């Protein structure tokens, strides 16, 4: 039963994506909305990304210090391990899980409210492809801007670790900096950036799908918002496993 309903939802999602990815009726209007969405979904998320990244970077550094407190481990391992965690998982997967909460719920509730207040019906009556008009700018904005957020997150996380070293003196700052530079594999950065593109697509499109098909009133909009966060989080984790297997083996 669950498999059947999941397959049905996936089929509906595919049809929905088919409607979203058509040529816009008016390119000028599309670009106007695209820029607005970059500001709303991307630029407005920068403060959250910075705050979370600084703290996670700091915590990672402390954790690494505590877990590598052995005479057999060089001190620079703290910086090296922190860097690997940040590049491989935090700044891509975990950041996108956080964005699934912030951006995903925002998208689902916005589109869901438009559905229950008949704004989407109004677009359809006018002859506008509402799925394309409302969703394409959001998906494109997220996919094109996510890498800016990921790069911001990488730098600020490492800076968080640096600040912990500078303030507490757990590890000498020069040793930490040496650690984050040593044995650097540039592919890991590309790996994080490529993964994030898939996650950004999932966050924006799944949230839009749940919002677009809301039926009922305010209560259902809230449910759609929650369901979109839960579903996109699960899909992100599933994709993380698949992409890691494909890209790091």
């Amino acid at each position, binding site marked *: 039963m669950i498999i059947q309903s999941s397959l049905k939802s996936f089929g509906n999602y595919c049809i929905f994506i088919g409607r979203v990815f058509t040529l816009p009726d008016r390119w000028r209007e599309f670009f106007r909305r695209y820029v607005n969405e970059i500001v709303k979904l991307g630029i407005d998320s920068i403060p959250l990304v910075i705050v979370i990244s600084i703290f996670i970077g700091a915590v990672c550094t402390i954790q690494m210090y505590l877990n590598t407190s052995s005479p057999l481990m060089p001190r620079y391992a703290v910086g090296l391990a922190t860097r690997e965690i940040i590049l491989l998982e935090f700044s891509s997967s975990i950041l996108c899980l956080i964005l699934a909460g912030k951006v995903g719920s925002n998208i689902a509730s916005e589109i869901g409210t*438009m559905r229950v207040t008949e*704004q989407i*019906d109004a677009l359809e009556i006018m*002859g506008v492809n509402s799925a394309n008009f409302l969703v394409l700018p959001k998906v494109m904005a997220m996919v094109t801007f996510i890498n800016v957020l990921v790069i911001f997150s990488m730098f600020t996380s490492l800076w968080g670790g640096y600040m912990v070293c500078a303030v507490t003196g757990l590890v000498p700052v020069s040793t930490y900096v040496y650690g984050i530079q040593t044995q650097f594999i540039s592919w890991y950065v590309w790996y994080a950036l490529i993964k994030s593109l898939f996650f950004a697509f999932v966050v924006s499109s799944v949230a839009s799908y749940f919002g677009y098909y809301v039926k009922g009133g305010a209560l259902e909009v809230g449910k759609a918002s929650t369901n979109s966060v839960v579903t996109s989080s699960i899909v992100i984790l599933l994709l993380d496993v698949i992409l890691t297997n494909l890209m790091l083996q």
Partner: protein
Amino acid sequence: MIEVRHINKSFDDKQILHDISATFYDGKTNLIIGQSGSGKTVLMKSIVGLVTPEEGEILYDGRDIMKMNLRDRKMIRKEIGMLFQGSALFDSETVLGNVMFPLKMFSDMTPAEQLERAHFCIERVNLKGADDKYPSEISGGMQKRVAIARAIALNPKYLFCDEPNSGLDPKTSILIDELLSDITREYNITTIINTHDMNSVLGIGENIIFVNKGHNGWTGTKDDIFDSDNQALNDFVFATDLFQRVKQYVKSTRAK
């Protein structure tokens, strides 16, 4: 003119519309009335194309919307304006932005011409000076007027209004009714209004279709309604004590 012929519509196993036929005329305010749950909203949504009936024909000046492909349907929608029950204004746009929206999306006008047309429509619904306000900053009656301005921006041939007076006080309701009636006559639009407001029925009902349990229960004008023997219609229209007295008064005046 819009003609509806033998429309049947079911949801799951429940039949909502039973073989409904009706004609809606140019330059007249055509009213669909009926109790809640009678099927009048489904009928309007079927005519507009938001719901697809199982059987029947819906002819827009002879063009059957049910037989049209997606492209033709999109074209005919540019000839349609619709006023929703909750106004359905775009929250993120100002009054001017809402009225400009259909012009930006579908007209070949220059930006200056679009602005001029939008201002004309806003002034036509007596909303001058509210251009920069957002829907949340204006009253329900003003929202309805913005929605009317948006609906007429592209000079539609057909105007649909779903319960335009819902949530409005009687005085504002009369203003909205008069505005719709004036616009209909002025631009020779086929206006279809879905309502259960008896003031509207008796005020602007030039062609009334009474939907009763999914059937076309009665057709006539606001003047015919006082002489009708249709029990369901009388029970619905003259449900209140006030309207029963009005009916008696009108009948006695006519007898004299």
